């Protein structure tokens, strides 16, 4: 590790206006997604899906489908996959509960039952109609509060009352803290699900060859996970499975588990020894992928009359859907972030994830925190109003600070929440008096920078990187991190260029191919900038150190730089120079050639890796933010329009400036959608809006200005002081919209998305209460 004080170094690449390195490919249509992959002799696969939410499979007869001209093969659970189960929580085998292609039972509408490969997609689709399946339909249950009842049908054997996972968090003496409280408030919330809606639907092309090797093109956010999971379910060695994920059309937390497309295409390909491509239609992507976890939240909070937070207790039931997926993590994180960003003397969280006969819920950008903030940040606003306190000052006096330790959970190093309050206060003040139909709502939150708990049970470092330098000074950077649009390729190239002292155009980044890149846990939990970033920094430093060894030893460079024993050399912008007298130096490519000669023609290779140590169980660093949203609401129709917003944001040292703005704006649109548009209504287990006509999302006309106030902090654990910026921003918006409605009308919205009808109903209810209140007097 370098010893220079980086905080005071002026960067040449970091946080400058750097273009996305995949830009040319993406704006010209050259970027080839899994959706576009076409291999010689390739077949097209289609999946037969369960029409029942809960049923036993008695018999599958596909003989007619096989006879259909153009059909090449069919696979089923009984004959081909033999009930092999999968799950991403590999450390806990009983949570690996998902049979893709089930043996005996289906648990949600849309679950794969069999798969067909044919010469064309049309033929495969027609063949699906020829497969006869006998089902014994079982009673089904769709809501967690129904599924825990004694008489509820059993969805998974051995999971009593359908309770899949429980998570508990507690610190301090909660009951004592409640006793001390002068004001206690309890509320119940119903927080909705949300679909990832990646523009590229689930897609895979599997190519199994007779030498026993399998190559898979797959749209995902962690090629290493998919490699390992596929090896596991197919009984192959990891090294014989290659996953390629160049260009991924969005993921948002929905693409790091094994999905039907990859599984069925691989099983078909292994059976038929031909490449098989499966692309989900938009409808399939809706009904048979996964979603953000819907939750029922009970929150009880005790405070002093002066607004000092004392105790909080939360009890949460989540609708887990049919399988575990990443649900256990979401269940823990929602409980943890429900405490954020505040200090509680006593905090208790009991979370229960319940199986139901709906599509499985899992991780999605924010990973449990948007649900937690929708409940927490609204309740806090109501408490401030109940007590007549300034909601910002009340938040401020209870907030985390640098060096604070969340008891038994995490130590906070950098924390800029206090400055966030200043920025939002200033913004609100500058706005002055708003028109009558508008109000501002705020919401605070924080988020993790990568996860620590090794639930995947990987033997590898969490992140790794390799840097090699070519004779002309160009650099090959190899990472296992995955760019799914968030711009990690660019961020990592920036870190490499800055560290090595070269230009952006010198870096050629290699990722998204398990054959050629080091394993890395991939893109989830906002982990790559910090974890892969640290690995890249270490690899670049390693390479640089090796280069400089030659410089220190080379008479020509020593004389040119005027080097003596007390002076250091450094490289910046391809200029190898004396740190004290930067004008004295030599060109970087000259040094590279010297080094190559010195190493008898071998390239310089730098290696780096990162696994968090001594950082608790959750995350090595936390981002903080406060968001203000100005909302216009039509009192007669309940229509919401977002007018303006400011996000005060502490993400440590920004690395990729354009990328950061993109994350902020993109997260805002997704979070605003979660606040008032996006929802997934089910009827008898059937998703009622599995298309982009009926599933409403923010469009350009709905998007308000999204200003940002960057709070200057330095995170010691992150590369150059950086921490997360990708997910946390999805957390505050729904609550901020709710709070704006509260300030506009005095009504409390306890369910999201907050739709016009709900606002009007709340207003009506309020009116009636007022009336009956008057009568009673």
């Amino acid at each position, binding site marked *: 590790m370098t010893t220079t004080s980086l905080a005071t170094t002026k960067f040449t690449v970091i946080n400058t206006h750097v273009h996305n390195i995949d830009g040319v490919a993406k704006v010209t249509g050259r970027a080839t997604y899994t959706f576009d992959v076409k291999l010689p002799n390739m077949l097209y696969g289609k999946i037969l899906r369960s029409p029942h939410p809960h049923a036993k499979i008695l018999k599958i007869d596909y003989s007619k489908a096989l006879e259909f001209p153009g059909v090449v093969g069919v696979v089923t659970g009984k004959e081909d996959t033999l009930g092999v189960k999968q799950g991403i929580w590999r450390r806990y085998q*009983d949570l690996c509960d998902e049979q893709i292609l089930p043996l005996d039972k289906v648990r949600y509408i849309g679950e794969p039952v069999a798969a067909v490969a044919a010469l064309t997609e049309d033929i495969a689709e027609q063949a699906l109609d020829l497969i006869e399946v006998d089902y014994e339909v079982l009673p089904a249950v769709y809501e967690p509060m129904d599924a*825990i009842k004694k008489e509820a049908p059993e969805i998974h054997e*051995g999971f*009593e*009352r359908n*309770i899949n996972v*429980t*998570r*508990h968090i*507690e610190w301090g003496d*909660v*009951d004592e803290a409640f006793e001390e409280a002068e004001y206690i408030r*309890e509320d119940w919330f119903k927080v909705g699900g949300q679909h990832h809606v990646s523009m590229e639907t689930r897609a895979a092309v599997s190519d199994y060859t007779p030498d026993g090797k399998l190559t898979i093109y797959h749209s995902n956010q962690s090629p290493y996970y998919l490699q390992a999971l596929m090896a596991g379910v197919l009984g192959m060695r990891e090294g014989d499975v290659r996953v390629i994920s160049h260009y991924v059309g969005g993921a948002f937390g929905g693409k790091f588990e094994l999905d039907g497309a990859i599984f069925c295409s691989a099983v078909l390909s292994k059976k038929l020894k031909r490449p098989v491509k499966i692309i989900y239609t938009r409808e399939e992507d809706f009904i048979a992928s996964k979603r953000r976890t819907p939750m029922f939240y*009970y929150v*009880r909070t005790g405070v002093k009359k002066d607004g000092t937070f004392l105790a909080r*207790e939360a*009890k949460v*039931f989540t609708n887990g859907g049919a399988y575990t997926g990443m649900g256990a993590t979401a269940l823990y994180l929602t409980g943890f972030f429900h405490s954020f960003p505040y200090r509680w003397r006593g905090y*208790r969280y*009991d979370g*229960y994830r319940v199986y139901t006969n709906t599509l499985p819920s899992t991780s999605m950008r924010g990973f449990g925190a948007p649900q937690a903030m929708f409940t927490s940040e609204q309740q806090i606003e109501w408490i401030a109003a109940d007590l007549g306190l300034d909601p910002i000052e009340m938040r401020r006096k209870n907030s985390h600070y640098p060096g604070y330790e969340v008891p038994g959970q995490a130590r906070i190093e950098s924390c800029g929440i206090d400055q966030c309050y200043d920025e939002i206060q200033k913004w609100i003040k500058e706005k002055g008096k708003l028109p009558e139909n508008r109000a501002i709502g705020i919401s605070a939150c924080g988020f993790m920078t990568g996860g620590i708990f090794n639930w995947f049970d990987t033997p590898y470092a969490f992140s790794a990187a390799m840097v090699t330098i070519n004779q002309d000074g160009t650099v090959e950077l190899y990472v296992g991190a995955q760019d799914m649009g968030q711009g990690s390729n660019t961020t990592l190239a920036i870190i490499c260029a800055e560290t090595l002292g070269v230009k952006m155009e010198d870096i050629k980044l290699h990722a998204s191919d398990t054959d050629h890149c080091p394993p890395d846990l991939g893109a989830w939990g906002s982990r790559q900038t910090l974890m892969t970033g640290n690995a890249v920094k270490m690899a670049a430093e390693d390479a640089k150190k090796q280069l400089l060894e030659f410089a220190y030893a080379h008479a020509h460079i020593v004389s040119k730089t005027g080097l003596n024993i007390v002076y250091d050399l450094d490289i910046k912008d391809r200029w190898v120079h004396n740190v004290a007298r930067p004008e004295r130096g030599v060109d970087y490519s000259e040094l590279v050639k010297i080094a190559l000669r010195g190493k008898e023609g071998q390239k310089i290779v730098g290696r780096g890796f990162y696994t968090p140590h001594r950082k608790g169980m959750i995350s090595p660093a936390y981002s903080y933010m406060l968001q203000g949203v100005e909302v216009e609401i039509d009192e007669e129709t309940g229509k919401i329009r977002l007018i303006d917003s400011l996000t005060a944001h502490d993400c440590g040292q920004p690395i990729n400036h354009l990328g950061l703005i993109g994350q902020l704006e993109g997260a805002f649109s997704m979070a605003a959608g979660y606040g008032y548009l996006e929802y997934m209504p089910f009827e008898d287990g059937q998703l009622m809006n599995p298309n982009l006509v009926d599933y409403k999302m923010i469009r350009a006309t709905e998007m308000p200005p999204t200003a940002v106030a960057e709070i200057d902090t330095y995170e010691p654990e992150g590369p150059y002081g950086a921490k997360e910026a990708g997910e946390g921003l999805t957390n505050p918006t729904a609550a901020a919209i709710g709070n704006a409605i509260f300030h506009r009308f005095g009504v409390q919205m306890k369910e999201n998305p907050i739709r016009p009808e709900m606002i009007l109903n709340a207003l009506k209810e309020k009116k009636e209460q007022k009336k009956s209140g008057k009568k009673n007097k």
Partner: protein
Amino acid sequence: MSYKCPVCKKEWKDSLQVARHMFGTGDKPHKEWVDEQGKDKGFTFIDLMIEQATTPGNKSYVTLAEIIEKAQSSL
């Protein structure tokens, strides 16, 4: 004094923590132990857990913590 989990023998300073651990783990042996204790008292592991989750306060944990305390001598 410290309290041991009657099933896996992990130790905590507080019997409430042991109760929390037992609920949190919730695997077969832990479940069975609680069910065994509740046989004559008319509760099961899952009853306690659902009560814990659906009513304010901490009753179930306290109930289980008391049972754990009593069981310490026989561990």
